[in-house]
């Protein structure tokens, strides 16, 4: 099986480790991974801030970059939601076709590859925050949790109020920074209350916001993308 990795612009520039983890994980599961270098940004920040026209060239570029791939996989619920939900509205038939071939990582693992136990080893206490777009727009449901529960050595703790937004919200984080920070601080408080040392998510932009608060508050917890936990094995532990 072959899949194209849609790494997303945030992961490319700020969190390459998530991209690397995704590549390793998929290869370990026997998936041949391609990285079409013409890809850049899916246009979600522009679109959600009200710049539909400025989004159009990015929709065209992304659509072209992934032409001909049966599976396009991305370790980001919100970018997957942008492509699946909005590409058919903004772009042409090719964009709509890409929408139907794009999978968020946990969807791809559970629905396409057909695994929940990916053979990972991660001896830490973890709590999982389901980001809104994955939760509500894609309907990821129990997939991330099932994947985490199958990880050897990992203890999963329930996050109170898990389904409440963490407050990132793209440009909301700066346009309404006070409300955004208040939401993030509440989320971090809930996460720390679980006693876990790792706050796991499947969207690095939310984790950037939450991690920034964890760091500022010197909390005994780090934020980590789900892909990195799933990439970790006994032979090659992820730091």
């Amino acid at each position: 099986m072959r899949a194209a990795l849609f790494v997303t612009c945030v992961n490319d520039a700020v969190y390459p480790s998530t991209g690397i983890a995704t590549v390793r994980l998929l290869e370990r599961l026997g998936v041949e991974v391609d990285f079409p270098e013409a890809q850049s940004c899916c246009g979600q920040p522009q679109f959600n801030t009200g710049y539909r026209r400025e989004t159009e060239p990015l929709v065209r570029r992304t659509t072209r970059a992934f032409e001909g791939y049966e599976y396009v996989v991305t370790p980001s619920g919100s970018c997957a939601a942008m492509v699946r939900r909005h590409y058919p509205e903004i772009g042409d038939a090719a964009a709509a076709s890409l929408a139907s071939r794009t999978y968020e990582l946990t969807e791809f693992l559970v629905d396409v590859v057909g695994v929940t136990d990916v053979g990972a080893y991660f001896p830490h206490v973890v709590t999982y925050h389901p980001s809104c777009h994955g939760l509500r727009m894609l309907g990821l449901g129990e997939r991330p949790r099932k994947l985490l529960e199958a990880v050897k050595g990992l203890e999963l703790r329930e996050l109170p109020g898990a389904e409440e937004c963490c407050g990132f919200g793209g440009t909301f984080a700066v346009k309404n920074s006070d409300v955004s920070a208040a939401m993030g601080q509440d989320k971090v408080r809930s996460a720390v209350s679980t006693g876990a040392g790792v706050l796991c998510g499947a969207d690095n932009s939310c984790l950037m916001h939450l991690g920034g608060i964890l760091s500022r508050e010197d909390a005994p917890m780090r934020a980590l993308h789900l892909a990195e936990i799933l990439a970790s094995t006994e032979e090659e532990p992820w730091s």
Partner: protein
Amino acid sequence: MSGTYLGMPAFPVAAKAALGNETLRGNLRHATHTIRDKREKAVAELDDWALLREAGKQIKDHTLRHLDRYLVQLEESVTAAGGVVHWARDAAEANRIVAELVKATGESEVVKVKSMATQEIGLNEALEAEGISAYETDLAELIVQLGDDLPSHILVPAIHRNRGEIRDIFREQMGAWGRAAPEGLSDTPADLAEAARLHLREKFLRAKVGVSGANFMVAETGTLVVVESEGNGRMCLTLPETLISVVGIEKIVPSWQDLEVFLQTLPRSSTAERMNPYTSMWTGTTDGDGPRAFHLVLLDNGRTDTLADEVGRQALRCIRCSACLNVCPVYERAGGHAYGSVYPGPIGAILSPQLRGIGSEVDASLPYASSLCGACYDVCPVAIDIPEVLVHLRERIADRGGKGHRLEKAAIKASGWVFDHPKVLAAGERVASRTRKLHPSRVPGAGAWTDSRDLPELPPEPFRDWWKKNRAEKNSAGNNSAESNSAESNSSAKNRGEGSAT
């Protein structure tokens, strides 16, 4: 605070003030979470909830599509039943009509059923200017009125007040408005309700004119419907000799049978009740029973303009249940007053800028008062895709340019160009990564981020460079030597904030 929303500051400014108020945050958190959880249980009881939701959406869409026809039909059926129909283009016209109708009765006071439409047009203030006292009879509206306050929630206008505050308002203000609060009033709900009951009873029995809104108007029969919990509505709708109802034109349903959908979805969504305690329905006037005279004032006030917008018009489906407020994490923290309108929360953020336009600072800021988390869409009993409308309104505001948006547009255009040229993007990422040790932890101008959050530390190289070295070049060379670990040696914990992991 006087009952006006004119000149309210932009949302972020008002929200910041609310965030600093610990009592308010506690009140809101407690109230919204309680009602949110109850709603979830009430809705889960119905196997056909998804179908009811879809039916509600379709009925509303159909009605809005043919609103002209249904409005005329409603006018005919209300008139045939003995009512008089008045048409009001805007708030001023509606207020003038109501004031003239009250004056014609020779009365100088009216009792009111809780009504969003009359709040929207500022009817109480307009009547006051004409020498007419309007008494709110809904418990929470009474609290707001006595406290010279503004409502902050569609269903529970005084959600921002706790019991102690309410007791103090009753003690200090009731005497000035009518029957004073009993001596030694406590802050128990039963005592507070009894004080309100005694205070209001005097007004119910004296009033000759009642003013209401309506939850629904049935076009085929001319019937108006008010659903409520307290019974004050029933008093106001049946005791006075004259009843004046001010209703937005979007509140129509075509037929009596359509009510079966909404009378299930509205109470469960709003108060989490299977059925609300009081459902009052009246059709014109009836000899020997209820008001002798009935006037219906049909209010446009921006609704026709809203209807013209293909994306935004879905906001007119709203049945004012307030479920979206109760699940909204932004509303929960900012409170209702920050929205600068009688319609707060997610629905307010899409309704106010459409009804009032985006001319004022607060209205232009409302579409951004959301993280687009989508919780509101999930709970809406008529499936209004609030995030979709928010983004649509942001487009409208961005198109207009203006304060703050010119710079934003330039930045979006520039970043768009870079994203459309991956080679330039890659070069930029490379420079950023290689100079990362020189980056200050607090970037000037990035205060909106760094006031409360650390910035991530950039990695030693972007993903695309790692790929080039470890996959693309190796694949073409057919060699499978060890991967470079440069990217992950910068452990992801570092750039997402680090503590001591267990």
